[in-house]
């Protein structure tokens, strides 16, 4: 938007600097008025809806009790260090799992989209793997691995449940993410592959330099989605007895008969997930804008 009288490109035949005409100034006034009206409507409707909700909750019969048992601010501050300590474990496991999932899912996707006859058995195994773990509830996989592997007595000393639980999460999520990446690879138009191969690039070089960069760019938004979901689902390993933040909140609650720890734990999750979700939105918008720019060129 060139609001102020701008000089055109050098040597432009327009000559003198451009000053908006009366008609354009009038339009701007109208647009401004329309914007003000829209903002006013938005503010009014927000006020009515949010105000209504506050009123509904605040005046309900059980609200005083709920406030005490769920929103006890002083108790919340007291237990915050304990919950933070536990949440640290969630974050560490999240990062480890994310890295492992990234590697395994990429391999799975590559195997599943490969065409070489030598890889046929691997392709078959990868397909079975994805079918099984994408279709089994995560919680069941955690139980099966968390209780099943120790029963095998493979090692002298038992494997820590944190490791087993995280492994279960990694195995399951790798199947989800592999499918996302595979769909990205398949969405790259065959003509791109043909163009790269006709330049003499090998199958692998084509994949590495032409197909994957485009595929990954397309699936970044859904992958970020999975990343957010992963943070929440890492907490599921608490069913094996791992004291992460959800488990810690549960322990505190059962001691004090006050549910504030659950609320505090939720807030901790939100502090991480909301910025990530915003980032996902922004990436998605950028991707769409870029595709549209290509379309109109």
């Amino acid at each position: 938007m060139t609001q102020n009288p701008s000089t055109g490109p050098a040597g432009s035949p327009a000559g003198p600097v451009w000053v908006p005409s009366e008609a354009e100034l009038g339009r701007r006034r109208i647009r401004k008025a329309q914007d003000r009206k829209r903002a006013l409507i938005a503010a009014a409707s927000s006020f009515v809806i949010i105000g209504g909700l506050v009123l509904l909750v605040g005046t309900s019969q059980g609200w005083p009790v709920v406030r005490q048992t769920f929103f006890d601010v002083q108790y919340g501050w007291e237990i915050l260090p304990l919950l933070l300590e536990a949440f640290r474990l969630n974050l560490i496991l999240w990062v480890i799992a994310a890295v492992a999932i990234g590697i395994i899912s990429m391999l799975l996707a590559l195997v599943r989209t490969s065409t070489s006859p030598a890889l046929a058995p691997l392709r078959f195994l990868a397909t079975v793997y994805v079918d099984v773990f994408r279709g089994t509830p995560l919680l069941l996989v955690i139980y099966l691995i968390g209780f099943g592997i120790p029963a095998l007595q493979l090692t002298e000393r038992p494997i820590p449940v944190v490791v087993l639980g995280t492994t279960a999460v990694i195995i399951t999520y790798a199947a989800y993410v592999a499918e996302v990446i595979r769909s990205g690879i398949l969405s790259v138009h065959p003509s791109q592959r043909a163009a790269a191969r006709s330049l003499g690039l090998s199958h692998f070089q084509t994949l590495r330099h032409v197909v994957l960069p485009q595929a990954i760019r397309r699936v970044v938004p859904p992958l970020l989605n999975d990343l957010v979901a992963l943070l929440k689902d890492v907490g599921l390993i608490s069913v094996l007895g791992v004291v992460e933040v959800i488990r810690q909140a549960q322990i505190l609650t059962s001691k004090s008969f006050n549910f504030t720890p659950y609320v505090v734990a939720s807030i901790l999750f939100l502090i991480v997930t909301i910025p990530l979700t915003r980032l996902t939105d922004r990436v998605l918008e950028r991707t769409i804008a870029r595709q549209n720019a290509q379309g109109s060129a």
Partner: protein
Amino acid sequence: MTGIDRAGAPVLELVDVRKSFGHDVVLQGVSLTVPEHSVTVLIGASGSGKSTLLRCINQLERVDDGLILFDGQDVCDPRADVDDIRQRIGIVFQSFNLFPHMRVIDNITLALRKVHGVAKDEAEARALELLSRFSLADKAQQYPDRLSGGQQQRVAIVRALAVQPRLMLFDEVTSALDPVLVNEVLSAVRELRSEGMTMVIATHEMGFATQVADEVCFLAGGVIHERGTPQQVIEDPQDPDTREFLRRVREAGRL
């Protein structure tokens, strides 16, 4: 010979239209009058602002300044009903933009049924009539990707025509087609001209421009350098930039 002396108030009038993308000024003061039943052809190199001008007319782009009067109504007025204006302006794009998930007949009747509330039977009857006029009747039940580029582009023209627009805009409609297919699309446009459709056409086909244009405008750097009848502008250009452009077109063997 003046070329544009057909009677009647102009369907479209542009006065000093400006448009920039960031610091890139694409149109700097373009004025244009398109009388009813006349054909205005925009020529000029890629990036001269032809497409942007067409996109401004049906409000796909918002202008920075200037007036665009369509049947006397300022389409740039923020209070104007953009949907209503677009219903009366047909546009055909370089890249067809048919809906790939719909059969040809559904592509054509979509706006008739959903926007204009025409009953399905009547809409399809009207679509079939139009299709047969453009020798496409046998393609009605097909999906767009089964058609050749020329057929797809003619379907796109029929789709724009189906709602009986007052003005048709053509944005380099043959640029994506091979020379053989170009001709069938251009004949379709000629057919429209003979029926008196008011049109604004951006094209690289100089021969075609000479045949159909009442007025030819040469755009460069967002300014109309020269305008007049095809005889004046294409066959006997006065402006040095127009001469240079046409010389290069001739060198490329496109005239």
